[in-house]
């Protein structure tokens, strides 16, 4: 997807492998409650970055900062080296998409109309719905496999289909960077794998992805880069095979385990003792 997208905001630093999106010593929290005192996390261009950590470690908060939902009290969040909070929101929204943890579908909306709302950052007052918008919506529906259900009310979809409709809305935004906040929550195992395979495919096609995942083994299988967090700080980053060790899982999650090779991928597989 990146291939034909002109990189408009491209000061040096946006080269392949460099940080596409990063927090720089960001102080994150809500009102008086500080979650991360000063966190520096990077999402490399072309990576599938997965943030993991125990409950309440601040991984969703970090993703909220990366997706412009939470402004740091100090420090910065940079997209290609430029502060995302100092740019027009629509400009950032053409570069960075988000699948939020919870979205609402308006009463009675049909799938295609929901997906079309993802086109908002590309539309203006006098440019409402053009051929490009229709093509983006049709493509997003194809990718998630909902093309046949385009005219179906979202309320009539199953949980898995519903989540895929929201994924399609994010895809219709056609951003080179896609952030996912626990995208597989509430889905059964088959739908989780189906959705993660879809993200893996998008990643292969050039989308830079950063996700918060709960399941360590899923993270290990799909991530190119792992960011391990504990108590608001990053304890380890790198490729899953380098990062996921028995000591780390014990230190971070307090879980005694063995790490064995995944019989399918050969990557690390965490098995609790």
């Amino acid at each position, binding site marked *: 997807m990146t291939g034909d997208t002109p990189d408009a905001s491209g000061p040096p630093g946006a080269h392949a492998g460099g940080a596409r999106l990063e927090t720089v010593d960001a102080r994150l929290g809500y009102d008086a409650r500080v979650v991360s005192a000063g966190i520096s996390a990077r999402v490399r261009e072309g990576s599938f970055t997965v943030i993991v950590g125990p409950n309440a470690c601040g991984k969703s908060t970090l993703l909220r900062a990366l997706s412009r939902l939470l402004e740091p009290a100090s420090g910065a969040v940079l997209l290609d080296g430029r502060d995302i909070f100092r740019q027009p929101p629509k400009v950032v929204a*053409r570069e960075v*998409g988000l699948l939020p943890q919870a979205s*609402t579908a308006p009463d*009675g909306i*049909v799938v295609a109309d929901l997906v079309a709302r993802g086109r908002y950052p590309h539309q203006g007052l006098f440019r409402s719905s053009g051929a490009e918008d229709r093509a983006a919506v049709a493509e997003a529906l194809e990718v998630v496999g909902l093309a046949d259900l385009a005219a179906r009310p979202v309320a009539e979809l199953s949980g898995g289909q519903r989540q895929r409709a929201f994924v399609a809305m994010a895809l219709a935004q056609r951003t080179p960077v896609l952030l996912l906040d626990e995208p597989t929550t509430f889905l059964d195992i088959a739908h989780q794998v189906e959705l993660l395979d879809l993200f893996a495919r998008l990643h292969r096609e050039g989308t830079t992805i950063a996700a918060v995942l709960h399941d360590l083994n899923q993270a290990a299988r799909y991530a190119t880069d792992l960011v391990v967090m504990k108590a608001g700080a990053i304890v380890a980053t790198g490729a899953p095979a380098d990062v996921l060790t028995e000591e780390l899982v014990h230190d971070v999650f307090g879980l005694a385990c063995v790490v064995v090779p995944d019989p399918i991928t050969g990557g690390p597989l965490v098995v609790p003792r």
Partner: protein
Amino acid sequence: MPDDAGRDDAVNAGTASVALARPAFPMRERMRPVAATTLLALLCGVAAVVALGIGDLPLSPAEVVRAAFATDGGFATTVVLEWRLPRVAVALAFGAALAVSGALFQSLTANPLGSPDVIGFATGSYTGALIAITVAGASFAGTAAGALIGGLGTALAVYLLAYRRGVQGFRLIVVGIGVTAMLSSVNTWLLLRSDTEVAMEASIWGAGSLALVDGAQALPALVGLVLLVPVIVLLARPLRQLELGDDAARAHGVRVEPARLAVVAGGVALIALVTAVAGPIAFVALAAPQIAKRLTRSAGVPLLASAPTGALLLLGADLVAQHVLPTPVPVGVVTVVGGGAYLLALLVHEARRRL
């Protein structure tokens, strides 16, 4: 997006989108909101012609049209254009304004009960008007100003009381209901401590009536409403995004809190202009958007279709108030009775759905 999906898919993607455009969006379903809105607008026209013919000098629709376009300035023309038209036009415009105001708030709060009269605006303007009438002894202009200040003040107070790292719909409604209850008792107290005649006058204003409205008084409000139209048009698109939840709206590039504040301000301005002139006319803002939603089967609360629906409701209610009942009553009484029945039905329906 060609890659592992294969080249065939890449070729198909083009045809798929073309094919999709047809069977997936049946024209009839696509056109329904447009058709329903157009039909409602036409009905407004028909209702207006009928309304212009009703009165001590009954005129057939044909006679109304002839009188309206006659150049000789006959008696029928005077009756239609000078006596009856202002009230009909005001009923249509105010009904539309109330309905759009309700649609803005209901969409914002994602709740069919989130209309400005439920969240304290109407009661607040009545408080303002009561203070103007009973304490300052104000005339029409003073009452209108009092209502405006009271309503805007209440809206601001509710917004600020409900503000906690942004305003969330449900909190707005609950705070609004609380403020409404407090102001209602203030209103009762203001009425009780004033002279009977003044209290009577104030009560009539408080019922919401179009009978006291003449063209000269209504004109500033009508001009104000027309000026608000482009503002509402600008708000429509961000509002559709807010329906997806704050996170999705923000991810799509909406400045969420400014957008929400603008929607509140637009909705309040609409109802403020109406209330200042006609008094609090209840329930049109509550009922019209939900009726329009069912007629158009649209996603979310329809802004555009709400306008003709509200216009029809208020004009109809005003005709009932003037001509159907044995003695004319303020239109607000009719809308309260009709709206009360509607609200009851809505609550019962919602309760059943939850169970």
